[in-house]
């Protein structure tokens, strides 16, 4: 069991990361990562949706018929998202305003339905829930990293508007890197989002390569080619 959990965790956070490897959920990923706080907000919303939807789908997995599978999954996800949307509008109104159209669009965040299809509909409740959490967390981390990078480069600040989520006292969190920083607008404009994610993926590839190198070399020496049987 723990082995399975470790695999799920590793998959979600790294090897099969929704944003960096599967390239799903890109629209919100690129659109709202203009700042740290936006990324965090959407990340949390997506995480919750993923967890809940994965568990729901897992529960009902034995009952759905193939011809209505997608409509039912979509219905479930849409209900969850709308509920979250309403809740957010009620309790984090300003954040809700900044995230705009992307909250309802969590519904079509491909990663959610992809997880429902490929994992939750085949696995137990516990595994599915955990998978949803890990996938969501992986997504959230990327959102936050991309948001921070874009905010720092683009505006020269970090944690701007933190009060939208953490209340007034969070205004003190604001970090500013020099008042004269002209702001490299590219980073917060659409092209910057694409390029930023492209660079993040390259970074991941680089790390993977570095991690792999020693492993393969020991493999090569330790393993004799298996006989052709």
């Amino acid at each position: 069991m723990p082995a399975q959990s470790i695999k799920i965790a590793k998959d979600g956070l790294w090897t099969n990361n929704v944003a960096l490897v599967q390239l799903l959920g890109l629209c919100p990923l690129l659109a709202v990562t203009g700042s740290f706080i936006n990324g965090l907000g959407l990340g949390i919303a997506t995480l919750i949706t993923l967890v809940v939807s994965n568990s729901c789908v897992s529960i009902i997995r034995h009952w759905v018929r193939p011809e209505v599978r997608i409509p039912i999954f979509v219905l479930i996800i849409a209900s969850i998202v709308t509920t979250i949307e309403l809740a957010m509008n009620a309790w984090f109104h300003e954040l809700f305003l900044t995230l705009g159209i992307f909250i309802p669009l969590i519904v079509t965040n491909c990663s959610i339905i992809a997880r429902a299809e490929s994992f939750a509909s085949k696995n137990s409740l516990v595994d599915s829930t955990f998978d949803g959490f890990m996938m969501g967390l992986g997504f959230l981390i990327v959102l936050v990293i991309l948001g921070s990078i874009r905010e720092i480069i683009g505006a020269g600040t970090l944690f701007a508007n933190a009060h939208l989520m953490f209340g007034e006292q969070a205004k003190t969190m604001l970090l500013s890197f020099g008042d004269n920083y002209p702001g490299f607008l590219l980073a917060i404009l659409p092209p910057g989002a694409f390029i930023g994610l492209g660079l993040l993926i390259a970074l991941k590839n680089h790390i993977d390569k570095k991690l792999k190198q020693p492993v393969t070399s020991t493999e090569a020496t330790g393993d004799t080619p298996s006989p052709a049987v």
Partner: protein
Amino acid sequence: MWVVVITLAIISAAFGLLLGYSAIRFKVEGDPVVDQIDALLPQTQCGQCTYAGCRPYAEAIAKGEADINQCPPGGEAVIIALADLLDMEVKPLSAEHGVEKETATVVYIDEQTCIGCTLCIQACPVDAILGAAKQMHTVIESECTGCNLCIPPCPVDCIYVKPVEPTLQTWIWEQPIGGFAAPKAT
């Protein structure tokens, strides 16, 4: 709230009927993808992909159970062709399934040692070995796929691997180097 529930219930029931009906009305059987995949596989039937032959592997790929990088005889070329067909990312040959041969090989039977036990004939998936019981056996080189499946069963170890020599007809012009200075990752 009840308005919502009722509206949605009505609409979804209607949709459900529609889909349920069309699922029956527009039912389709068969999957041409398997044939397309099978056509790309080298038909060595060696089983290195862990399936019982090329076609079973093709079926497994079509179902999404097997990855596209498990066929060592096909090597990079087959992986690329499959990735192309299925619109997937090209990936390197999975090491656990074996390595791609650099040169094509066939086997030959040392005629002096062969005792004519027919075990190799039974092993050969493509009927490339000729011979009758207790007579010396020969490999029809042009039919041999080089799967080496006949080697282990031979009780007297008289089957050997040899590379296929190029002829004037099968020889290939060398690819120049340069420009694409680093050959693309395989």
